[in-house]
């Protein structure tokens, strides 16, 4: 991991298109601003990690889940005609 020290107001540039700015430090919280192209998605790490983990769990339980559904699965509301 590359480690840099910044003061509020200072920035870090990643690649050519991404800039991370330390906006404010308040107690044990740091406010960070990110400039990035629209195509680059930015997420809180723990949220992204949870999505990844849940995908892995879904893949691992695909056989189990398919079997559960073949045996009837959860009750559903009656199908609406479109």
């Amino acid at each position, binding site marked *: 991991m590359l480690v840099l020290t910044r003061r509020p107001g200072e920035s870090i540039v990643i690649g050519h298109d991404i800039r991370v700015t330390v906006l404010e430090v308040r107690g044990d919280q740091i406010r960070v601003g990110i400039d990035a192209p*629209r195509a680059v998605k930015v997420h809180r790490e723990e949220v992204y990690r*949870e*999505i990844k983990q*849940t995908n892995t769990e879904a893949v691992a339980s695909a056989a189990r889940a398919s079997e559960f559904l073949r045996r009837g699965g959860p009750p559903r509301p009656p199908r609406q005609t479109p």
Partner: protein
Amino acid sequence: MSDPATDPSDTDEQVLVFPEGIPGFPDARRWVLNDLVDDGAFQLLQSLDDPDLAMVVGVPWLFFPDYAPELPEPERRELGIERVEDAVVFCSVSIPEGGGTPTMNLLGPFIVNRHTRVGRQVVLESSTDAVRAPLPLGA
């Protein structure tokens, strides 16, 4: 390659393309949906790039009628989704290893443009949608 929107005889019309893969599986870009049950509530999302990669997905509103995912503007534009009807939305289903209540990932729905068949798994900015929402199993 024929345009899937206008050539229904082309079997490639069933292929969904996720240009960035999905979180955890960034190289899995081509997928198909296979029916699992008669009423269409659940399908198997199967990777064409890796035969071992598949997951059950379901229609969230059947179980969570108030589910209202807000598609962030940049993603909406990227997918070319202008109206609600342009989008196909489904969420992954997991069952914990020891058995137990199946859960649905409402925080990371799959959103596909129904005309272009291009989609992605969107990470919502919501604080109320659970990544493991228990499927209501009661009567």
